[in-house]
């Protein structure tokens, strides 16, 4: 990727991460700092975040429409989802053992906030209309949660741009992944706006990491 385009992309993701951290701070009641740690191009079929396929995760999926069609997915490994729910639902740390409807709803809201922050910045910067839809929740094996998303785009694109982001909470250790995928045709719109050819899928991979208790 040309350096100037990479810088533009980094600037966008930094801004999105900042917005996400502000919104998460408001939701969780704890100070949250979000940092983009790395970006890269990879095969969406093979190189999703390094989680074993049978690892239980909470997945929040939000379809994307507008000028660009795609998918956004927020992934939290099981224990991390529980830790996050402790904070969001104001429970004592370590008490969530099973996800209630309230917990699922709270996690969906986190999906809305995080994915929405990135999509809003992309939309504003690239001048493309991106519409985020109602989130859907799944709590199951990682491979099973992501394969429908991969399959949906496998026929349109193979490469993905991966951006890793860390979220630093004040009193908890949280790790998660946000994945945004756009199909080939949709990606052309983004590529044109970014003026960086050669890619055909965009994946935003966010790792949220906090300090203190948790994991």
């Amino acid at each position, binding site marked *: 990727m040309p350096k100037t385009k990479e810088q533009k992309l980094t600037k966008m993701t930094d801004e999105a991460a900042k917005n996400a951290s502000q919104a998460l701070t408001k939701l969780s009641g704890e100070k949250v700092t979000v940092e983009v740690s790395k970006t890269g191009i990879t095969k969406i*079929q093979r190189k999703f975040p390094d989680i074993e396929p049978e690892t239980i995760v909470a997945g929040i999926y939000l379809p994307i429409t507008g000028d660009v069609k795609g998918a956004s997915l927020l992934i939290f490994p099981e224990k991390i989802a529980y830790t996050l729910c402790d904070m969001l639902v104001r429970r004592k740390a370590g008490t969530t053992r099973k996800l209630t409807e309230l917990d699922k709803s709270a996690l969906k809201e986190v999906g809305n906030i995080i994915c929405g922050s990135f999509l809003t910045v992309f939309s504003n910067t690239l001048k493309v209309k991106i519409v985020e839809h109602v989130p859907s929740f799944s709590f199951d094996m990682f491979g099973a949660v992501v394969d429908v998303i991969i399959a949906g785009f496998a026929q349109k694109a193979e490469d993905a741009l991966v951006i890793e982001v860390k979220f630093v909470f004040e009193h908890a250790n949280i790790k998660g992944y946000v994945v945004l995928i756009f199909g080939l045709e949709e990606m052309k719109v983004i590529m044109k706006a970014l003026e960086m050819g050669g890619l055909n899928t965009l994946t935003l991979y966010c790792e949220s990491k906090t300090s203190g208790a948790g994991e």
Partner: protein
Amino acid sequence: MADIEIHMGDIAVAKDEDILIASGIGSCLVITFYDPKQKIGALAHTMLPARRLSFEVCNSKDERRKTNYESPDTRYADTAIDEMLKRIEAQGVKRENIEAKLIGGANMFSAFTSDIGENNISYAREKLKKVGITIVDECVGGSQGRSVEFSVASGIVTVKTKF
């Protein structure tokens, strides 16, 4: 004896004590073939029903030829079934002896409007019928992830769920 992990879009043929494994299956569809007489098995970890849409993303005839004809794309059930048949028959297995099993095809997200899982199941059933392969068992549909272990020595396919 070897444990062979079959990733999305891959297929494998095995015999003797080999165990074919496909982990974390959601909408994807695992198709197993087994010849109980020769104890030879095959497993495909397919993602989509057919390769029709891949034509849409190929700009030139050369690309189309390369993508769809020169190398079988085993992400798709249709080409994966053909390729499995080719490879297992090359091992001396007769088509009439092959027993097929289907696992997967779940719908993990209610918001996912196109039901890839259901399409995978129905297409595979049709395709197997067309090529004369009998389906002896299925564990398909629903909204649960699955993992598959296929012991080629015994022919037993074990399906695990997390809940």
